[in-house]
């Protein structure tokens, strides 16, 4: 498996010039009503793990319906594996001002 992931990562690298995070897990932190990072580029097959550090609950809801978390209370996490390339915009359905984007290469 390992050499294959490596090859995928290289392929993604050559396409954009931007270094995407390698397949595996990538963390997104939710704090003070913001996703951090707000823009993330990852390789297909990567799992994103969101963790809410706010005392107020938040959700992760993609605008195209591809993924949607339940309400995350403080210190709750949500994971989603991005199997296919694409650009995924998502919001917090409780505080829709909170917006972020994940690009999957």
């Amino acid at each position, binding site marked *: 498996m390992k050499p294959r992931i490596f090859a995928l990562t290289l392929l993604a690298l050559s396409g954009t010039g931007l270094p995407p995070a390698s397949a595996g897990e990538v963390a997104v932190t939710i704090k003070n*009503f913001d996703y951090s990072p707000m823009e993330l580029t990852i390789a297909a097959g990567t799992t994103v793990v969101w963790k809410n550090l706010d*005392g107020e609950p938040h959700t992760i809801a993609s605008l195209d319906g591809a993924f949607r978390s*339940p*309400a995350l*209370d403080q210190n709750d996490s949500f994971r989603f594996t991005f199997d296919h390339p694409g650009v995924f915009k998502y919001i917090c*359905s*409780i505080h*829709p*001002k909170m917006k972020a984007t994940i690009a999957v290469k």
Partner: protein
Amino acid sequence: MTEPSRRDALKCLGVGAGTLFTLSGGVFSAFDMAEARIEEVGMPLFLQISDTHIGFNKDANPDVIGTLNGTIDAINALPQQPAFALHTGDVTHLSKAGEFDTASQLLSRLKVSELHVVPGEHDVTDGPGAQFFARFGKPSGNRGYYSFDAKGVHFIALVNVMNFKPNGLGALGEEQLNWLKGDLSGRSASQPIVVFAHMPLWTIYEPWGWGTGEGEEIASLLRRFGSVTVLNGHIHQIVQKVEGNILFHTARSTAYPQPSAGSGPGPGPLLVPPAELPGMLGVTVAVADKKRRLALTDSTLA
């Protein structure tokens, strides 16, 4: 235990320290309750509770069940019970089935026999709002929005938390807006109108999404009526605006306060000294006075 006296019950609700808003000739004016005798105020028509957030357990209020129970006790101690209660949303904190069960159990203690509930965004975090509509969807055929008449007043329940605008403001969506137009068309301008929804139906603070995208369109549909009261929750504090014959009013939460617009990183729970908390939670009671004017009194748990 003896029945609490009328004075004690009202004191319990904090009415004595409240401000009374009355509608007279289509214009709301505020006067201090101290100048009004309770006997002149008359029967309560309905009451509004909001943002009970059952399931919340953080420092801002570790006991939201206790404060809701305190609110219900105060309401049940009113000398005269209104015909029905409105709950303007965020019944639960995380839309969990257990939270809805607890909330329903607590609210069933209200002596008021009829409860009308609109969802807040915390109630529909599962997307379609399955848990909410399973419990409160019946009057609206699971649409969430509906209208009814009581004592000559036309009440309209709206849902503005399931169809957000890109800038984060609440929205009704085209279907509901068309329904609202139909519901109001042909209605006599002299009939008093009460509209209730979770998020404010006018823009209080756009950066925090405190408003509704179609607010201006909604207001334009309501302007021809002689008496319109728009009741919302969502912001856990009282904010009021009068525009022509329309009174816009947001209610306190029974769970925890929120910061005033723009104070801090976002509209999260506001931590206050425990002794100050009861004074920031409460209920709104609408009474019809002998001159058939509709008046709102905001009362705290202090």
